[in-house]
């Protein structure tokens, strides 16, 4: 069963805005409230909106389980990998080796009151991106399995 055309059109319009806002929360995790988990949950809400609005056959054509499982695994591997690179450089686990280095996310934080510089934080934005990808895949696959459990039976 699919929802009415009004619900489907509303889901199509809102999906882009929700995903953009979630990616914004993930990327600004080290500057503003929120972070990887909150942003990933917001993006997964967009996926849940599409899953609720369309029927089972249409949803499995749009969203694939293997992609979501790969996202979950890739997020965990990226999180642990960034933490292990620090051991490879001769420092401790989770050492922030990118901060103040001048390379990726390595700008020195300006002194005094400032609106916040995105290119700071060292490995913290990378960790936020990893957690965001993982939570996105994990929460979306929970909803997708809930739908596929009832997909075989005849919907009332």
């Amino acid at each position, binding site marked *: *069963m699919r929802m009415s055309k009004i619900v489907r059109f509303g889901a199509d319009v809102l999906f882009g805005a929700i995903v953009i806002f979630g990616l914004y*929360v993930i990327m600004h995790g080290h500057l503003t*409230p*929120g*972070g990887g*988990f*909150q942003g990933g*949950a*917001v993006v*997964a*809400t967009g996926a*849940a*909106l599409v*899953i*609720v609005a369309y029927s089972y056959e249409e949803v499995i054509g749009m969203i694939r389980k293997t992609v979501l499982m790969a996202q979950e695994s890739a997020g965990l591997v990226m999180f642990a990998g960034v933490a292990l690179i620090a051991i490879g450089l001769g420092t401790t686990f989770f050492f922030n080796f990118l901060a103040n280095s001048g390379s990726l996310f390595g700008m020195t934080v300006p002194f005094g009151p400032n609106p916040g510089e995105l290119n700071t934080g060292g490995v913290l934005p990378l960790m936020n991106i990893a957690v965001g990808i993982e939570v996105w895949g994990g*929460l979306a696959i*929970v*909803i997708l399995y*809930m*739908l596929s459990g*009832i997909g075989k*039976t005849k*919907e*009332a």
Partner: protein
Amino acid sequence: MIETIIHILVIAGLIVSAVLVYHFKDLLAAALASGLFSFLISLEFYILQAPDVAISQAAIGAGLTTAIFIIAIRSTKRYEEDAP
């Protein structure tokens, strides 16, 4: 003063939406009232200066939980029966 008024309005809305969840026989409307409860409690978290918790509550409470309820209602009956 204005903060107190907003507080009272939000808490009154929480009580009203919680009563509506109990009152509705249409389960889809009850699920949406539960989502309204989660939205209002995330607004309350924001007023109490915890924007981090507010984002989590809005995404998980008002979004994902309501989606799971709606999927469950789609595969079962929509209207609650009278008690025997």
